[in-house]
């Protein structure tokens, strides 16, 4: 019964959770906003003063800022592309009944259980290392000079590592979507004269579009904040070649002890993330009702 009494009772019961959530979100945001207008450096906390828009203009005129924005976008787009394309391919492969299906599926999912810094360290020291990494061994086997991944292709290396971590997530979501594809539809298309490629384009892809949207939206949220992988591998370098926004803010706060500057960077990052979110919702969100 949706009488007025039950409605106000419901509102009352919901209130604590909502208030807690508001405090949880609003207080840090307000504090960040406040700090971003202060000259506040941990090396000289006594000299804290009102800074106006200085932190913002400082951050904005920092040449590293635009590098960081570009790197952030390249990182997000690169990882999204790799995970969605490879995820679809792998999902289609393991959707077919094969020998040892259970084991194969577990193996494919397992990277997801490795914590980001651990994964990055493994890649750094055991796979991409120029003298004792697997890639170097492979290069030597084929008579090529080993590549020093983190020096020569820092951002690409990080994209590869992050994509490796997120591939299981994409694969899993896409696999469940594939399994809900109606077999009779495929057979109908086969009788309609559609070859494997046409069936993929006209049936499988549209069917997967919703799952792809979920993958893209969820991954974007996490990929905008990538940080641990950069910290343990390239430290944002060489130069700013692998510095993204999150890492730039970290550098301002923890290496320069500039709380005001870091807070301004955080606010800028939040605004940029919202831009990306609006853009994404426009581009792919219509797949979700």
């Amino acid at each position: 019964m949706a009488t007025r009494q039950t409605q106000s009772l419901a509102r009352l019961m919901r209130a604590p959770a909502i208030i807690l959530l508001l405090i949880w979100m609003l207080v840090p945001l307000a504090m960040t906003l406040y700090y971003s207008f202060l000259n506040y450096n941990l090396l000289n906390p006594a000299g804290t003063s009102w800074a106006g828009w200085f932190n913002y203009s400082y951050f904005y005129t920092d040449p590293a800022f635009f590098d960081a924005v570009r790197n952030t976008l390249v990182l997000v787009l690169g990882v999204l592309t790799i995970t969605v394309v490879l995820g679809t391919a792998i999902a289609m492969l393991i959707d077919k009944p094969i020998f040892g299906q259970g084991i194969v599926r577990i193996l494919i999912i397992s990277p997801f259980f490795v914590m980001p810094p651990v994964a990055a360290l493994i890649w750094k020291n055991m796979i991409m290392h120029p003298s004792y990494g697997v890639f170097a061994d492979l290069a030597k086997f084929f008579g090529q000079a080993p590549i020093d991944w983190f020096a020569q292709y820092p951002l690409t290396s990080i994209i590869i590592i992050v994509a490796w971590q997120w591939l299981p997530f994409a694969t899993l979501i896409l696999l469940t979507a594939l399994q809900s594809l109606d077999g009779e539809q495929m057979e109908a298309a086969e009788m309609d004269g559609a070859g494997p490629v046409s069936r993929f384009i006209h049936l499988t892809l549209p069917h997967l579009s919703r799952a792809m949207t979920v993958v893209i939206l969820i991954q974007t949220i996490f990929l905008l904040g990538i940080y641990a992988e950069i910290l343990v591998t390239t430290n944002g370098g060489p130069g700013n070649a692998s510095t993204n926004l999150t890492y730039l803010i970290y550098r301002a706060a923890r290496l320069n002890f500039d709380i005001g500057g870091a807070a301004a960077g955080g606010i800028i990052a939040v605004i940029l993330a919202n831009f990306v979110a609006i853009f994404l919702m426009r581009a792919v969100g219509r797949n979700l009702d």
Partner: protein
Amino acid sequence: MGSITLRNVRKAFGDIEVIPGVDLDIQDGEFVVFVGPSGCGKSTLLRLIAGLEDVSGGQIMIDGQDVTEHAPARRGLAMVFQSYALYPHMSVRKNITFPLKMSRMDQDEQNRRVEHAAKILNLTDYLDRKPGQLSGGQRQRVAIGRAIVREPSAFLFDEPLSNLDAALRVGMRVEISELHKKLATTMIYVTHDQVEAMTMADKIVVLRAGRVEQVGSPLELYRSPANRFVAGFIGSPNMNFLEGKAAAGHGAHAIGVRPEHFRMSLTEGAFAGTVGVAEHLGSDTFLHVDLDDGTHIIARAEGEFAARHGDRVWLTPEEGRIYRFDAEGLAI
């Protein structure tokens, strides 16, 4: 053209032989119905003809050409699935043109055919909707539309009406029959419903456990069933079987009498019994009678017949309407 010939077609899934060997000739333009109980292999046989399953042995020929190894698309057949199998993200128009697009037909011809099919099937107003916005009957018609635009040499239907409610089913049954008259294309229609089979078919193929029990026109099967299974399957309500003394009197292991071939009387007759349930429909009266020897009989009288629960009745089979079967169940 659309004559289809099966020569000793067999199908096994692993160790389980579902179709042990079927021979069948289907003439061009015939409406053939495969009928049989659930799980007897009707769908499997249809899918073998369509090419969606590989045969384990035997030959399938269309218009005299061996197509056993051909892919489904090359056989020139169109299929309507039980689930309709429409493409959910495409509009009705796109669904119907899909096979034409796949064969790279030119755009004008595609449009002409869609408009034509939509007119035949009353879909003109719905061409821009998605399948999800249509009723069951309309979806069914879209599936049929997608089949007819290809102008196939034969149509295959797999229980196309089983997802519709009873009233729609009768309507669609008539529509499909009319479509067959209009197109004069071979149709193979699978159903477990003998009423659909009797009303629609030129030729009925009765299947049991993957074997063809009998092939014939509806009335041939009604009049001269080859065995007890066909006799019991064709006709509604089912044929009554009497064994023991009653059958021995006719020199058979069992005799069969259809409900409509009993004369009923409240005073005298061949078999005496007690009325269990009496169904008075006005046009007909159905009596469920328990004979004195324990046999349960359903008998039909035209018009009204005054008998109620618990009454004594006598039933007499009409002369020449008694089917006799031997111990193996074959008709004598």
